[in-house]
């Protein structure tokens, strides 16, 4: 084994440790999406049907949203092997994450040589952004790996045409993994075709045709679903569905100047198109800001980032700048153009949605960023190697310490600090509360659980099935599934699961109900009842001691 092989294996082991260590316990709690994916895979494994009783669906209906099915099917074998658990639901993403490191090595080597490949793989292995979304059932992470692999096979197919078919398979499978991948993969495909059209013409006809057919076959079900209204929440999320409100325009335009919507002034300076353009550009630039990349990450969704961390390591600030400068200085070539292309378009799909920043939808940025980091790191190491021994030694020690230090800060944020920030966003508490309900349920006639878009039912299904409780097995559940769409056709709710009722709490009326166990949030009930002897109280707390759930029932002895 030569040294590069050893280095690659070491990097992969490192990547694996960072992605697999305590995977079942961190993140601190299963999200409702993860529980949904897991339960559906479990249901497929048992019955071949999803939770709603559809036989081997392509797209899964999940809380009224539509999710392409690849992740569910990837979890079927892990659940078969390890049983239903947090670990087995998360494992596919973690393994895909490790695979991405391998593919970025291969791709980086192909574009800029072995060394850049190795450093890109190292950068990706250590990238907080990638670690974060490899730890947890994130469909977008699967799409990312498929995209990197697909591009790698695309480039490899110029040497050996067979790989072209594999490339088609990978790229079309991205559609099966993540809704937003539709635009992202299309953009990358167009870019590749444009840059490498000459090479494309040289590919043998039979491979070209079989790739085309395979690609079409695989993507067909997903493309068809677009026309049957299973495109997910694209409309709800898209920025084009949102315009300024009348009041806002009144306040910022018409209150200041005497014009109407038909005035040329309005068309010139206050048009909806301009507002949209400013909004999209602003969001696009947010993804390239220091705040997003290095300091805060996804500031609108706490669950998408670790406490006080960005998406890249602190030391990467320097490496990233060096990488940009390095690639800029390189002579223009297809490879360079491809990296710039990825760097400029990867955040476009995310910028077209309404969040001012979103770490999942922009996950594709990891692709160019790890190549840029690899390039920068390679340049830096190369520069150090050119120097005198003393400088070289000092430089390497400083560089390694900087990485270790940055990584230590990140790991501390991930494994220690995260528990205390917004545990509610991680759905913390459901596991305990479900266990407690199972322990106590026989004592009551009725169980009422405070309804919310957390989708509490899915945690009962998941943890119930995990306990081997036959009521929550796929066969039993499919018989009585009682899904109800909400009025916007956006996200729906489940109202009943066996003897457990999910509904909003109206404490004024509900407090009188005897023989009923309520599971509520603190704000659902009156403070005075929480300290009165009339009620029996049990709480489930967040790691910081605040109350997550309250189990409350009328004290029958007193009556």
């Amino acid at each position, binding site marked *: 084994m030569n040294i590069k092989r050893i280095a690659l294996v070491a990097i992969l082991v490192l990547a694996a440790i960072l992605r697999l260590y305590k995977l079942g316990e961190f993140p601190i709690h299963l999200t409702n999406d993860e529980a949904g994916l897991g339960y559906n895979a479990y249901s497929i494994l048992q019955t071949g049907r999803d939770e709603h009783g559809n036989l081997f669906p392509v797209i899964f209906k999940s809380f009224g949203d539509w999710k392409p099915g690849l992740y569910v099917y990837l979890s079927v074998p892990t659940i078969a092997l390890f049983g239903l658990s947090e670990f087995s639901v998360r494992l596919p993403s973690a393994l895909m994450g490790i695979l991405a490191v391998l593919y970025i090595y291969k791709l980086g080597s192909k574009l800029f040589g072995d060394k850049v490949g190795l450093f890109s793989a190292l950068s990706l292995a250590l990238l907080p952004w990638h670690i974060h979304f490899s730890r947890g059932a994130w469909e977008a992470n699967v799409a990312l790996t498929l995209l990197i692999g697909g591009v790698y096979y695309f480039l490899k197919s110029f040497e050996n045409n067979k790989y072209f078919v594999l490339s088609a398979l990978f790229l079309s499978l991205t559609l099966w993994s993540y809704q937003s991948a539709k635009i992202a993969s299309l953009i990358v495909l167009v870019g590749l075709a444009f840059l490498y059209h000459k090479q494309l013409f040289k590919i043998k006809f039979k491979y070209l045709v079989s790739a085309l057919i395979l690609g079409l076959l695989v993507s067909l079900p997903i493309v068809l679903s677009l026309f049957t209204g299973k495109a997910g929440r694209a409309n709800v999320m898209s920025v084009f569905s949102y315009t300024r409100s009348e009041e806002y325009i009144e306040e910022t335009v018409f209150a*200041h100047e005497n014009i109407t919507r038909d005035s040329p002034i309005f068309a010139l300076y206050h048009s909806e198109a301009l507002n949209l353009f*400013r909004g999209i*550009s602003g969001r696009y*630039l947010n993804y390239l*800001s220091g705040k997003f990349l290095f*300091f805060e990450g996804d500031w609108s969704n706490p669950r998408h980032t670790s406490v006080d961390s960005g998406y890249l390591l602190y030391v990467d*600030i320097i490496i990233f700048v060096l990488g940009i400068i390095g690639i*800029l200085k390189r002579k223009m070539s297809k490879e360079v153009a491809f990296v710039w292309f990825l760097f400029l378009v990867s955040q476009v799909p995310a910028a077209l949605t309404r969040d001012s920043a979103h770490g999942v939808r922009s996950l594709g940025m990891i692709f160019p960023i790890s190549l840029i980091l690899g390039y920068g790191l390679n340049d830096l190491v190369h520069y150090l190697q050119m120097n005198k021994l003393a400088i070289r030694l000092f430089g390497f020690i400083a560089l390694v310490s900087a990485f270790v*230090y940055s990584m*230590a800060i990140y790991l501390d944020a991930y494994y220690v600090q995260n528990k205390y920030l917004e545990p509610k966003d991680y759905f913390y508490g459901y596991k305990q509360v479900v266990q407690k309900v199972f322990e106590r349920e026989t004592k009551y006639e009725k169980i009422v659980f405070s309804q919310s878009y957390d989708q509490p039912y899915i945690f009962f299904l998941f943890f119930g099935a995990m306990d081997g409780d036959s009521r929550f097995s796929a066969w039993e559940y499919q018989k009585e599934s009682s899904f109800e769409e909400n009025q916007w056709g956006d996200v729906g709710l489940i109202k009943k699961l066996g003897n457990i009722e999910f509904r909003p709490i109206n404490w004024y009326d509900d407090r009188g109900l005897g023989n009923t166990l309520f599971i509520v949030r603190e704000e659902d009930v009156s403070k005075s009842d929480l300290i009165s002897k009339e009620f029996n109280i049990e709480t489930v707390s967040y790691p910081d001691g605040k109350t997550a759930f309250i189990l409350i029932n009328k004290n029958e002895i007193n009556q």
Partner: protein
Amino acid sequence: MKLINKNIILILILLLAGILRVYQLDVYPALNADEASIGYDAYSLIETGKDQHGNSWPIHFQSFNDYKPGGYVYAVLPFVYLFGLNEWSVRLPGAIFGIFTVLAVYLLARELNVGNSKLKIVSALLLAISPWHIHFSRGGWEVNMATFLITLGLYFFVKAQRQMKYLVISVLLLTLSLYTYHAARVIVPLLGLGLLAIYRKTLLSKDNLRLSVGAAVFVFVLVVPLMSNFFGDAVSSRASGVSILADRGYIDRINEKRGRHDNPSSIVNRLIYNRPKEIAIEFGKNYLEHFWGDFLFISGDDIERNKVSEFGQLYMWQLFALVVGVVAVVKKQKEWGVVVLWLLLAPIPAALTFQSPHALRAQSMIIPLIILSALGLCIVLDFIKRKVSSKTLRTIFYLAISLVIVWDFSRYLHNYWVHMSKAYPYSSQYGVKELVSYLANEQSHEKNIIITTRYDQPYILFLFYLKYPPKQFQNDHVLSGRDEYGFSTVPTFDRYEFRKINYDTEWSLYQNSVVAGTDEEIVEGANVIKNIYGTNGFLYFQVVR
């Protein structure tokens, strides 16, 4: 005449810069408290040889206990002497510095000698119409003077590389900027060190060594008064008050995070969570926010006084020009040392303070940004000229580019003149001039006058508009203690009292006074004798008797 013909475009650009900076300068936007303080201090010096608080010929003006660097006050002084105490005298120097900065950037871009003949004129044009630069040229903003001095100083520095005698002018100008604005005190010394590193071969060559050392001694002599004054207690305490080093919140956050470990005081824990690291992170974050696209191109500064609604610090299209310019510079770094160094150093002082990004404190960023985007624009224009052979197509390209530039420029003017004062009605002290002139004409002479402190520092605007005799004011006022932000104010002078008005609970206090409060403070049913509106049509004060 020949000189005019040869430079006709430059002259037109300077004329444009002049119109944009001087038109209606006295009334729009309304004078703010800082400007009034500068004007009144100059007036006070002329009348009494002392500032408003009785300090004679100070280097830093005590003002609201924020100790403003004095350079701009001394620039305003001759104007007040010649034209009296009014808005023009306070603001015209700033506008003139702004116009001359356009000239200075022309000279600097020419002197850079980067082999692009259009760069100088495009740079001048872009600065002339720059939102960031126009904004701070229209008003008595000290920073604009500092930026002028640095730009001209750097021009002479680059020029000195061929004729060393200019080094003396350069260091004189750069040192003067230290007397003008706090941020310059961080940028300029760092610039000096950086330039020394870049140009060490010329500066420290045998022939030039004596002159360089001489210049260094000259600088030293020039900064002695500043240093001795700065490190006096009051001035430096203000400077450190706004710095991120002063934040006590770090300690709590560090302890909280350490406390989540089993052994809070372990070495690893101390290494990961400690004050220097937190400050370094805060600094890095603040620093990079100045290169945030949203700040530069989309929404601008958060502080209303520093911005125009729906506008970035630069035009949106400048993003593309900047990218092209930066790419060109990265590919060929020689000759660009000064510009790149300046761009990298300019946000540092702002990043050391709480509010980031900060358009005012980081204003000198605009010069390197303008030069780089001008470079980008030149490259694009050259590219079209060389590569597009069809004349019609070329014309279409030129037209399209001009159209975008003109449209965004007109959008800026529209937002500045139509929307700014209405979108941000409290960004400047609208209405106070109207109030003072009303009270001066209508007041009943036997009564005290009570004015609300809702809007910044009303006392100084009263002094300014009343042209109140400085001698009398110096002898007859007390400066309050510092508030939580480190500012002091004067609660009363003569028959004027400035306070928060609680009309419903303390109405008895106001019985024998004329009261001017906001419409929220004045209860319904009060005997309102006059509503005072600002030039933007907003109701600012209700006068009650």
